[in-house]
């Protein structure tokens, strides 16, 4: 066994493959339509499943009747998830699924199913806390210090109301799967964020042994936190296959159900009071917040965000249970809401103090856990944004089309999840790397191959990487930005272990001890003496008949310097606002992010850019709209559930902090943090431009015009 120090990442200056701007290895299959997703499963004997959701926000099933559907030609199975008496808690909740020879027939059969409901009272909107009655559950008040006295003696106090709506994940590949229930086990092709975990989830729900479920997923069309479990529809799909003679059944959610029931991000509403002393130091915070994440209520956003050391704080939070689809993890759970609520209130306080927000935030970074990081970042971001020349006091931009700048902060954990990797070196020189992980599009495949290539001193093209099946060594699900840290560390360890074995086999022929060897440029050579070397293939030929196979394990709790957790970021937005139409346009966005060791800057920057664009959608376009009258979601489609297009995002400057001091921390995932501060930065920029705060997001023309006219939208 090599000792821990052998596993360490090679020093920055000697890296040959990691840290390089390498194009993603699965780019061409994807860009040519050849990559297969769960949605693309196709076989001649494939059956099509259609899921039916509850049409009401709250109802009890009175009777069910599938006789007409059953009698239809081509229908092979019907699977109910309710019975008379079942209570349904949201529109879209699973009722029944149908399998048929064609999708058209399955849809006809779904329409032919009759369910009688008793419609029950519902609450689907949480914006007016007074109107939700006993649906609001207050968590106990939390007090630090003496906020009342602090507010009294403060130099400046600001009070404001801010809100951010429920968003849906809206993955372009809908949730769903194909299941084939054979006598030899269950073949399961899901769209998932956890190939090593989702099979066990399905097995448990089907009450079959976990080792009989075989998961295979090579590509996934987006997850963002919503694709961890096998879901009801996975279980229903399996039963449809079982009852259709074991033929494979594909059942993907239709877009409306996808938006109603396959995951969303809780809202955040807050009445905030915040105060500062004469120097602009924040002294007190008080908030009354509420949120909904569906019938289970809604989590408390961690406010005051980032500025966790404000001395005097009073917090009250209520979780509101609504008859809406349940929330799921959403790219930095609760952080975008917290960043928006906090940074909006702080920006308003800075305005009252007549301070430039950069100066105000900078001064108060002492109240955060990583003041030095934020201080460096705010300077960097301000420089790239040209803040000093662009910033004008709030509302002083002339003309009908006004411009403004704003800023916000973010933080996240990261770290590396539990991951096992198996590395094989064959006698013919071929190498195989296996992990039960998945590539959500962030580049997991690419960085794993980079790590293996770096350790072995081989070109990327020689690495045969296999992921996406639960028959490979267990790796954690991709959530919380933990994949990069996890898979890179386990791969590093497995390949170092395997290489060690190769050194042992080769050392005698070079007349040195194994620890005198190194692997570079597809050769095993004596350290510092390229003349004493054996090409990789010949080195491997020295192995006996048994290939080398070694494991590498990343223990989430003991990263051994290979990966780390805890980052900060500063983000700045520049917008223009047409005060006649209310339309907000993005001009420029700057994100400066702390990331640890960057395995591949090209992919990491894409990850940041994507997170920023997701935030732009949330700031200007996206929101789930519920109608209290009917209990229905009004925009369960992609015409009115709006996403940004290519012309809506402006210039984006994403900067990774790749200084040696951060590099030495090891790998830190950044899927989440860059998505956090965007909404707040844009909201502050809009306020800076038009001189008044648009109290909620998204900042649609209607809300912007309302704010300008002093009415509530």
């Amino acid at each position: 066994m090599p000792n821990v120090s052998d596993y360490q990442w090679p020093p920055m200056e000697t890296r040959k493959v990691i840290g390089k701007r390498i194009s993603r290895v699965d780019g061409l299959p994807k860009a040519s339509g050849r990559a297969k997703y769960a949605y693309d499963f196709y076989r001649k004997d494939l059956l099509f499943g259609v899921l039916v959701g509850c049409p009401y926000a709250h109802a009890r099933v009175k009777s069910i009747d599938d006789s007409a559907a059953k009698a239809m030609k081509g229908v092979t199975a019907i699977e109910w998830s309710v019975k008379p008496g079942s209570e349904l808690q949201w529109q879209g909740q699973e009722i029944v699924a149908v399998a048929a020879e064609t999708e058209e027939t399955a849809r006809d059969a779904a329409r032919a199913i009759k369910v009688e409901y008793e419609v029950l009272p519902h609450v689907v909107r949480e914006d007016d806390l007074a109107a939700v009655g006993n649906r609001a559950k207050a968590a106990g008040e939390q007090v630090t210090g003496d906020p009342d006295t602090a507010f009294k003696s403060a130099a400046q106090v600001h009070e404001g109301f801010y809100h951010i709506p429920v968003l849906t994940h809206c993955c372009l590949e809908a949730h769903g799967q194909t299941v084939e229930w054979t006598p030899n086990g269950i073949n399961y092709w899901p769209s998932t964020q956890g190939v090593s975990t989702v099979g066990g989830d399905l097995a448990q729900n089907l009450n079959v042994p976990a080792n009989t479920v075989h998961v295979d997923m090579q590509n996934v069309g987006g997850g963002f936190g919503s694709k961890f479990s096998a879901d009801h529809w996975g279980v229903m799909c399996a039963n449809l296959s079982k009852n259709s003679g074991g033929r494979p059944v594909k059942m993907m959610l239709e877009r409306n159900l996808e938006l109603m029931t396959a995951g969303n991000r809780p809202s955040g509403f807050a009445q905030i009071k915040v105060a500062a002393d004469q120097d602009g130091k924040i002294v007190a915070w008080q908030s009354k917040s509420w949120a909904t994440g569906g019938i289970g209520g809604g989590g408390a956003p961690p406010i005051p965000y980032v500025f966790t050391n404000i001395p005097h704080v009073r917090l009250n939070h209520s979780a509101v249970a609504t008859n809406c689809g349940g929330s799921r993890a959403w790219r930095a759970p609760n952080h975008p809401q917290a960043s928006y609520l906090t940074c909006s209130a702080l920006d308003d306080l800075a305005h009252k103090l007549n301070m430039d927000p950069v100066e105000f935030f900078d001064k108060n970074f002492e109240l955060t856990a990583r003041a030095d990081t934020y201080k460096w970042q705010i300077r960097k971001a301000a420089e790239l944004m040209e803040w000093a020349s662009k910033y004008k006091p709030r509302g002083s931009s002339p003309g009908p089309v006004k411009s403004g700048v704003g800023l916000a902060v973010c933080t996240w954990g990261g770290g590396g999840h539990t991951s096992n990797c198996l590395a094989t070196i064959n006698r013919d020189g071929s190498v195989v790397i296996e992990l039960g992980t998945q590539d959500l599009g962030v580049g997991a495949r690419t960085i794993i191959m980079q790590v293996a290539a770096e350790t072995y001193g081989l070109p990327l093209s020689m690495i045969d990487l296999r992921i996406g099946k639960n028959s490979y060594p267990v790796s954690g699900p991709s959530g919380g930005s933990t994949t990069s840290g996890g898979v890179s560390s386990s791969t590093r360890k497995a390949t170092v272990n395997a290489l060690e074995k190769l050194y042992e086999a080769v050392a005698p022929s070079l007349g040195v001890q194994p620890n005198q060897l190194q692997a570079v440029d597809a050769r095993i050579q004596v350290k510092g003496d390229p003349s004493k070397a054996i090409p990789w293939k010949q080195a491997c030929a020295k192995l006996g008949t048994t290939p080398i196979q070694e494991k590498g394990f990343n223990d989430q709790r003991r990263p051994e310097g290979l990966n780390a957790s805890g980052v900060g970021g500063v983000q700045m937005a520049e917008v223009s606002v047409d005060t006649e139409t209310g339309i907000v346009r993005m001009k420029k966005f700057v994100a400066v992010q702390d990331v640890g060791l960057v395995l591949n800057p090209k992919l990491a920057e894409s990850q940041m850019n994507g997170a920023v664009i997701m935030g732009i959608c949330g700031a200007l376009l996206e929101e789930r709209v519920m109608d209290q009258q009917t209990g229905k979601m009004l925009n369960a489609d992609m015409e009115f559930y709006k996403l940004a297009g290519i012309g809506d995002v402006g210039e984006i400057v994403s900067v990774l902090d790749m200084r040696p001091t951060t590099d030495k921390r090891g790998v830190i995932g950044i899927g989440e943090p860059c998505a956090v501060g965007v909404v707040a930065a844009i909201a502050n920029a809009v306020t800076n431009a038009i001189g008044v705060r648009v109290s909620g997001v998204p900042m649609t023309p209607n809300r912007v015009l309302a704010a300008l006219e002093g009415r509530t939208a």
Partner: protein
Amino acid sequence: MSAKPPRPPVDRETKPKRSNFSRRGFIQGLGVGGGVLSGGLLETALPNAAEAAPATIGPDPVTITLRLNGKSTQVAVEPRTTLLDALRNRLGMTGVKRVCDRGACGACTMIINGKVMYGCTVLAIDAQGKNIETIEGLAPEGKYHPVSEAFVNNDAQQCGFCTPGFVMAAKNFIDLHPDPTLEDVEKGLGGNFCRCGTYVGIRPAVLEAAKKMKGGARNA
């Protein structure tokens, strides 16, 4: 609620004009023993047929011929089946993606008679006799189209689910606008959405591909 400024359509038919479905061509393609022809259809197809009941076909599947990537391909579809579903569900051509299934996202973009169309808004039977190009036809096995390559060079994709639609839209856009500016690209590709947020890569990718295709790499 409308926050989005309207996107100017650039050579993009989001709502295809319903073609005049050629009954005569249809019958010829069908052969006699199809068993799906109503008397009305036969009658109206005959020259000088007397006033007759409106033609109906279906609801059972009918065999049609599609001109797909230069090859004639027969497929049995119900008359209500979209071109997108015919390709994905009947022919296993899954490069073209289904996301919104109602003309809002561009994931199912294909090129029909030289124009970008959403496959989910075209009935398969209406696509007969037209030149249909899909992502599968862009490059032969083992080769890649310059647009696909430019997407990879510029990391214009993450999960990749929107990518085939974008690549098709970009290919057609470049064919029609060989010398685009960045602004043209933003307008021309306004009919496709990406949830992962890859637009920062798509912009230079399209410009790079346009340059390469001008240099003669058009037919990979």
